[in-house]
């Protein structure tokens, strides 16, 4: 019984871990998809490296956002220096819930953004001067990751 009532900090840490984990997975899938397309373009024309690299990197932000939320959670629950906070199960679960938006959106939007990036790299292959437009399309997907990130950050900071 005692064990079950002391799980607050565990739930919070699971939340932080999930955010970092899912964001990282989403990003690596996305960057991977875009990277394949990028390699194809570079094999034809190495001079486009700079442009396609930028496009390949665009899905890479989900991992950063996950890290961001994870870090704020760790700071909030006192795991970075100082004593761990004494969290009730309810508080722990609340933090876990707060991590869910960036966890799920970061995980699933990564590959989606990666596909758009890969397609945008195709634009660069054919029309290198249309870089501005090519860059914008993957950024459209990112909007929803940012919205999820925002709610996660606001919720986590509000719970402290």
């Amino acid at each position: 019984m005692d064990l079950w009532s002391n799980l607050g900090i565990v739930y919070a840490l699971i939340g932080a871990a999930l955010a970092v984990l899912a964001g990282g997975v989403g990003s690596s899938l996305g960057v991977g998809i875009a990277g394949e397309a990028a390699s194809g373009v570079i094999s034809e024309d190495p001079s486009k490296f700079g442009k396609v690299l930028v496009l390949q990197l665009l899905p890479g932000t989900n991992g950063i956002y996950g890290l961001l939320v994870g870090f704020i959670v760790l700071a909030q629950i006192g795991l970075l220096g100082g004593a761990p906070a004494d969290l009730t199960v309810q508080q722990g679960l609340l933090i876990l819930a707060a991590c869910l938006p960036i966890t799920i959106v970061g995980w699933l939007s990564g590959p989606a953004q990666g596909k758009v990036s890969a397609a945008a790299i195709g634009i660069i292959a054919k029309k290198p001067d249309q870089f501005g437009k090519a860059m914008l399309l993957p950024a459209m997907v990112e909007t929803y990751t940012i919205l999820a990130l925002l709610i996660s950050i606001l919720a986590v900071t509000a719970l402290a």
Partner: protein
Amino acid sequence: MAVVQMQKLSICGLKKDRRAILDKIQTMGIMEINHLLEEDEVFQKVDVSKEKGNFDKMAVTADQSLNLLQMYVPKKPSKFASLEGKEVISEEKYNHIIHKKEDILKVIKHIQHIDKERSDYKAEIVKLENNIESIKPWLSLDLPLNFADNVHSAMISGMLPGKLTMEDINRIMAKVESLGIAVEPHIVSRSNDHTYVAFFALRKDSEIIEDTLSTRGFTRLYYAWNKTPRDTIDEIEEKIVQLKTKISQIEMEMVALDTNREKIRIFADYYRIRSDKYEVLSHLLQSSNTFVISGYVPTMYVDDIKQEIEQKYDCNIDIDPINKNEDTPVLLSNNKFSANMEGVLNAYGLPGKGEIDPTTVMSFFYAFFFGMMLSDAGYGALVSIVVLIVTKKFPNMGVGMKKALKMFFWCGISTVFWGVMFGGYFGDLIPVVSYNFFGTEVIPPALWFTPLENPMRLLVFSLLFGLVHLFTGLGIKGYICLKQKAYFDFVCDVVFWYVMLAGLILMLIPSSIFASILQAEVTFPAFVNTLAIVLAVAGAAGILFVSGQRSKNFGLNLARGAYNLYGITRWLSEILSYSRLLALGLATGVIASVVNQMGSMGSGVLGVIIFIVAFLFGHTLNMAINLLGAYVHTNRLQFVEFFGKFYEGTGRIFEPFNRKTKYIDVKED
């Protein structure tokens, strides 16, 4: 904030002057030639495709020679090649070099000639080396390889499959010898799967011997050398040495010829320029004694053109009226600060017919939002300083590149501003360093507030800045409507929206949702609350009942109005989109703190080293990723939210007829 006014000029001159006039126009580089004029009985186009083809060939040949020189005398391109821009040479030097173009052509031809010689020699060496390989098995033979030519006796040389011994050979020969034929077999050498043999016999018997052997898979080998294998190989090797000397002589000559590289580049560009000129010439309408050319010139340069051409040649320059639907090219002209953001507009699309150039308005928002998203004084200062150094160091860089870099300079300044407002200097570097290495924690105060401590407050301000941005966009739309005298559109698409949104915002501010976000209650006097409702309802009613009135069908009009009113959801999503200002700003600061935290894990001297490594690596990475993020998302806010209100960007860029070169820029005196 302007699209440069264009004039359409047509120049009519004497045919004898056409090259000189075209040259002048090309050098000035301020006129875009259009080829709209049609042929008739008098004015016809002249085919110059042969000349143009020759010039293209010259340029390509020169490029090939340059590639060859680069192959023989590799010059590592500088890491900053894209920043360096083209080499600038004076008109005088250019003319001086082009004057000797025949000599340069000789050099170019010579380079290609000796390169071909070298590859021939290389092929010859490969062939000779193969010969040596084929002779090698016969080395132990002390006879000339074409010994078969003797009068009475014959040498039948060749190879038999398998690694055979003398007994095997004797066994094969037993059949021949049983016919009473004398034969003297020799095993010259053996390889893994072949045995090289020579048979000596009388000439008349050689056929029978060969027939017998061929049943065992014998391949007869003929050689033309009339010396012993040893001597032959020596002779071939000597030949190879001679060829190698020749090759190295050619390579040395190439090194000597490398001094011509600059001249060849100028030569290549000279023919590029001429080819462009002939491209224009091929579209020129010419009569037996005159020609006519037309194109667009920015108004401010019309006098220059007149002065340079009308006064020097016998010709007539007319300014033609520009048709309303004509596809005039677009050239932007902005103040020194805003001009740097023209590249952003270019990436989206230039202003089309009836549109205004939004660069100036956009440029201020651009720097503002960029700074807010990067929001770290350290990063901002670093960006600006790097740009300053780079632009000083590479004065010849292309105009577009220079503008883009300068844009980042200003964005960097804005980032410093926001960094100071939010108290971010490489994240929390100052508190971390002062606490870990000096024992006292110094926290630089945020001039405004620290976002991480009060994110809701920054969210509200982000949305507010977004609202200002969007309302500005809507205002520009109104301005365009008024300019085009589309008063109905002005009222429906602009005024009603302003009224309704103002009302909605006034209604939202005293509400409990807003109070919880702002963590402060706002109460308006009663008349403001009433006014808010009146405005919102009036605006909504206007959109619903008036904006759809474009036909006589009442139901359709109402449906159209309802659809327009539904646009309110777009406004909602657009305003919320500005929350990225907060999210990206926080991302920079928090990741920077993570870097500092990781760096400060050690202690003592080792701790300092760890900190420096973590600082350099971590902050470089964080800055790179957040620069990218700030750039992409600032563009997005301009392209989608701001331009979405009023701008299409269907214009075509002004492409003057000028000297388009690959290697050099000729600077006029």
